[in-house]
């Protein structure tokens, strides 16, 4: 066994994972809120109005980071699902299953804020173009994973079955991303590009990137918080869980 998988096994051991995530969670949530607050202030107050869309474009500061997260969460989920299906590592099963509801939340916010943005600018809440439709399919994939996971009694079997579904759904991710290039869509092309210059003024770009950073941190905070509970639930027969519950149960009553 090489060092990487050795490290993985150590971090992946449920008690270590539980303690580490309990330590990290509050800090991650606090960092996300702090960076998000600066980003929102910058986006709503400091960034100038757009030449075409005036102040309506400010929806970008939540719509675009959430849209990025909807894809990022899916890739994170699929990567863990892959490990879960092939290596059957418990923590990966849990991480894959807990990232689904967080990703679904970001996808739903993306669709809702997109509709609210579309009404005044495009003139419609919804249209069946390739970008909007594939993003809706993404939401259904998340809901399918969540539904399948809760439909099967045995937690580990449920996780592996739902992981399998999520893994196959990964083919939708490039479709969402490239839909605006492959087809004629009402939705415009990508504004922020990794390769080549972004098509947004610097004064509007930095609040957007701050918001993106905040939502990424939030995602990990939320996934860790959810996974911690799942670990406790699935390991409920173990001695270390008994110790933690007895220490915490007194406080919670």
């Amino acid at each position, binding site marked *: 066994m090489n060092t990487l998988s050795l490290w993985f096994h150590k971090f992946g051991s449920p008690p270590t994972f539980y303690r580490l995530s309990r330590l990290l969670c509050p800090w991650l949530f606090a960092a996300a809120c702090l960076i998000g607050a600066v980003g929102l202030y910058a986006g709503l107050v400091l960034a100038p109005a757009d030449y075409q869309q005036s102040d309506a474009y400010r929806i970008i500061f939540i719509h675009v980071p959430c849209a990025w997260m909807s894809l990022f969460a899916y890739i994170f989920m699929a990567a863990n699902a892959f490990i879960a299906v092939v290596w059957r590592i418990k923590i990966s099963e849990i991480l894959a299953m807990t990232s689904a509801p967080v990703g679904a939340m970001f996808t739903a916010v993306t669709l809702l804020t997109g509709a609210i943005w579309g009404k005044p600018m495009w003139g*419609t809440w919804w249209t069946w173009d390739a970008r909007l439709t594939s993003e809706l399919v993404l939401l259904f994939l998340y809901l399918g994973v969540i539904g399948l996971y809760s439909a099967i009694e045995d937690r580990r079997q449920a996780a592996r079955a739902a992981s399998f579904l999520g893994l196959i759904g990964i083919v939708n991710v490039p479709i969402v991303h490239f839909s605006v290039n492959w087809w004629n869509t009402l939705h*415009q092309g990508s*504004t922020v590009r990794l390769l080549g210059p972004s098509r*947004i003024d610097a004064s*509007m770009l930095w609040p957007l990137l701050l918001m993106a950073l905040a939502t990424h941190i939030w995602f990990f905070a939320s996934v860790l918080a959810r996974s911690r509970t799942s670990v406790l639930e699935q390991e409920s027969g173990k001695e270390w869980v008994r110790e933690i519950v007895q220490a915490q149960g007194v406080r919670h009553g």
Partner: protein
Amino acid sequence: MTPTRKRRLIMIGAILIAAAAATTLIVLALQQNMTYLFTPSEILAGKVPDGARFRIGGMVKQGSVERGQSLTVAFVVTDGDGDMRVEYNGILPDLFRDNQSVIATGSMQGNHFLATEVLAKHDENYVPRDVAEAMSKAHRKHDVPVEADKPTP
């Protein structure tokens, strides 16, 4: 890696490749039917079946907007190669203006397009107002054609 894991890895890999291939084929097959819109030159070339309801997409030609009684409006949609006159009776989106990309749904009536819905497509550029003004001023000074669609440098 144990043989069972290797077998699972190969299985998952094969299934993923199959799923990707199937999706690619579906996408390629849909490409022909998934035409969200037609451009004016495509319509003039006769690519649209007679009497079909479809979407037309292009730019509003500079100075072509004629406003009639109440909400009636007529304008020319162009894609550079072909022009198409569009007539519409209804509320236009806020972004509707000269040189703006628009998508109209409706059908052909004689040689013009009768729209039941007009949507504005906005581009991926976000520029503060004063920067946009300064840029168009500089463009005019150097005889560069001013376009709303010019990407930010």
